């Protein structure tokens, strides 16, 4: 047929003002929606089983509010923004500094979660199979911690390549996507914190 070469269907509507959104941004936003749905179910399970455990230990007996860890994680959202700003100004030095700080804060959070779990398991004898509280607690907090681990992996990766001399300033877009993920992990912690340590106690 005639239009094998698929000519421009209308040359007068020039492509001048056609600027669809960046695919990475749409992609990560969609990913975050899916992740939110995943967390929502774990949160729902936690709330559903509040006070339904048949045997102890119960939340109010064993949980202590993780103040330091929370401060670390939440402030890492701020430091990653600072890192991004430095990147926009093409300042590799400050970028590395802020990024290192972010990575360190994430690592501290993870270590403190580990210590909390250590205490719960060793001292309070609360494991995932002790009761419904144990299952839902380790399920929800563990799901979040696993997201922190993934985040930490990518944070470290960026840190390594930037110190190995990779021109990190070319990766502004990808860094932005990573920081969206990181903000999401932080925001989830706000929810987890509220549900587990405020409402749940």
């Amino acid at each position, binding site marked *: *047929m005639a*239009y*094998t*070469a*698929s*000519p*421009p*269907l*209308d*040359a007068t*509507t*020039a*492509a001048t003002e*056609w*600027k*669809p*959104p*960046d*695919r*990475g941004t*749409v*992609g990560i936003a*969609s*990913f975050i*929606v*899916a*992740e939110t*749905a*995943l967390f*929502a*179910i*774990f949160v*729902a*399970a936690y709330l*559903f*089983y509040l006070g*339904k*455990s*048949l045997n102890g230990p119960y939340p109010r007996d064993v949980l202590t509010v993780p103040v330091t860890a929370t401060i670390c994680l939440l402030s890492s959202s701020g430091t990653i923004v600072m890192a991004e700003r430095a990147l926009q100004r093409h300042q590799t030095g400050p970028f590395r500094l802020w990024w290192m700080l972010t990575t360190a804060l994430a690592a501290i959070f993870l270590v403190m979660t580990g210590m909390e779990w250590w205490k719960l398991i060793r001292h309070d004898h609360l494991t*995932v*199979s002790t*009761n*419904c509280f*144990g*299952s*839902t607690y*380790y*399920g929800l907090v563990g*799901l979040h911690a696993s997201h922190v681990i993934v985040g930490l992996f990518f944070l470290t990766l960026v840190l390594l390549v930037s110190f190995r001399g990779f021109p990190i300033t070319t990766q502004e877009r990808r860094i932005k996507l990573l920081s969206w993920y990181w903000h999401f992990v932080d925001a989830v912690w706000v929810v987890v914190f509220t549900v587990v340590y405020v409402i749940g106690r």
Partner: protein
Amino acid sequence: MASVSHHLDVPESQPESSLSGNMYRWVSTVDHKRLGLLYAMAALLFFVIGGTQATLMRMQLAVPNNHLISPAMYNRLFTMHGTTMVFLVGMPLLAGFANYLVPLMIGARDMAFPRLNAFGFWVFLFGGLLLYYSYIGGGALYGSGSAPDVGWFANAPLTENAFSRGTSTDYWSLGILVSGLGSVASAINVIATVFSMRCPGMTLARMPIFVWLMLVDSWMILIALPPLSAAQIMLTLDRHVGARFFDTQAGGSALLWQHFFWIFGHPEVYILIFPAFGTVSEVIPVFSRKPIFGRQAVVAAAVAIGFISTSVWAHHMFAVGLSSVTNTFFAASTLLIAIPTGIKVFNWIATMYGGKLRFEVPMLFCCAFLFQFVVAGLTGVMLGVAPFNFQLHDSYFVVGHFHFTLVGGFIFGMFAGIYYWFPKATGRMLGQQAGRWHFWLFCIGFNLTFLPMHVMGFLGMPRRIYTYAPGRGWEVWNMMASIGVAFQIVGLLFFFYNVIRSLRSGPLAGDDPWDAWTLEWSTTSPPPEYNFETIPVVRSSRPLWDLKHPNDPDWRYG
């Protein structure tokens, strides 16, 4: 701007037509068209497997007191059949159509993330194979090698260690978890493609309805599949590290599993029907020679269904004994969702009304779709009325209802799509004559199988029974249902014969055999790897109409 995306990197040294070269090209491809075809081929393969399981079940049920199949094997058959058809036929067929068509329809050269796309396919296939490996590796109470037998919704606490020994249930939960990952990946990809890769002038308002529906569909996948994954993670924790989520003996809740499963499960059935809606919305206008009636209404209704579908799940749980307030809410939302669905049906009929109808094979499938989907919708509304549901819950009425949506709606819609787009994908037409045989045999067989099931339900026959005693008036209906399967099988044989013959010697299709209006028909059949030589620019929702009728283009009226 739609950017030139990554292309298939085939080493130049690969000989053009050697078998290994060809295999290599298919296995390593990141081209959306090849991946789309891979999805469709995998889905057809699993369709044959799931169909074989269905045939075995119908053979067993044809006469009362039959001993062809043991009760334990029957349990595995319906579990594997339901799981296969939903997750390994429905989801990949949907992903295949979306992958193949969305970029072509919006004038893009590939999906937004071609490699993620390939990842999605292979992960899905691995999940499917993992599920089927259970036939070999799934140890169960009675010796080794057994498939899951807990039903496609795997109700707790049946799935807990106490009742489901061995590993077969783990194959169910991990196989579907893994293949669900692929579905989410491809949904993310479709959304990013639709938003970011449209050609100049392709505003959301001008986008083909199929693309719109796949966009809403992907949205539903994003919010519906992760809950299933979450529940499956919990179930796996229960089974392997002794968690208590659904362990009723330790304070866990069986009800919670049902909520979680159906929070996924009900949107899922809309997820499955949407590609059929989309296909029908493309095919009916072309074969009626009229633009679709009430374009905005079709799209708005789809968005409405997308929203309401997230709040109807507990209509699968009326018989559980939820509070009457809960039942009332979910009955109301279920009846509510019938409204946008009904709007669509009126749109399709109004499109045909006064049109110059051409009853080619794709159109035949669409007509049957219309009739059967309305029947399915009506029985659905009946089941949505909670007191009626109490009577017929878990009966063959339900089996008849959902097969009318899934086979009569989804499968018929997809066959319309296959006959319609096969020429585009392969460059060759499917045979008319064989297509008509396929249609009539499949249609008659389908109705013969599933219409009687409604009666069986009224006569009190429960679902998931492996045999029944004579003398309850069920015999004749069961026999009819089983005979219908034979018709369907012969119809499908015509289909496969048709496909193979056309691939080898079918008449050449040309670029635009149906005189259609959407962008995929503006390029060659099959399209080149880069889809479009120059990125098209569009000014209306029927760009090819504009091209063919320069004196009377659509955009003059819009």
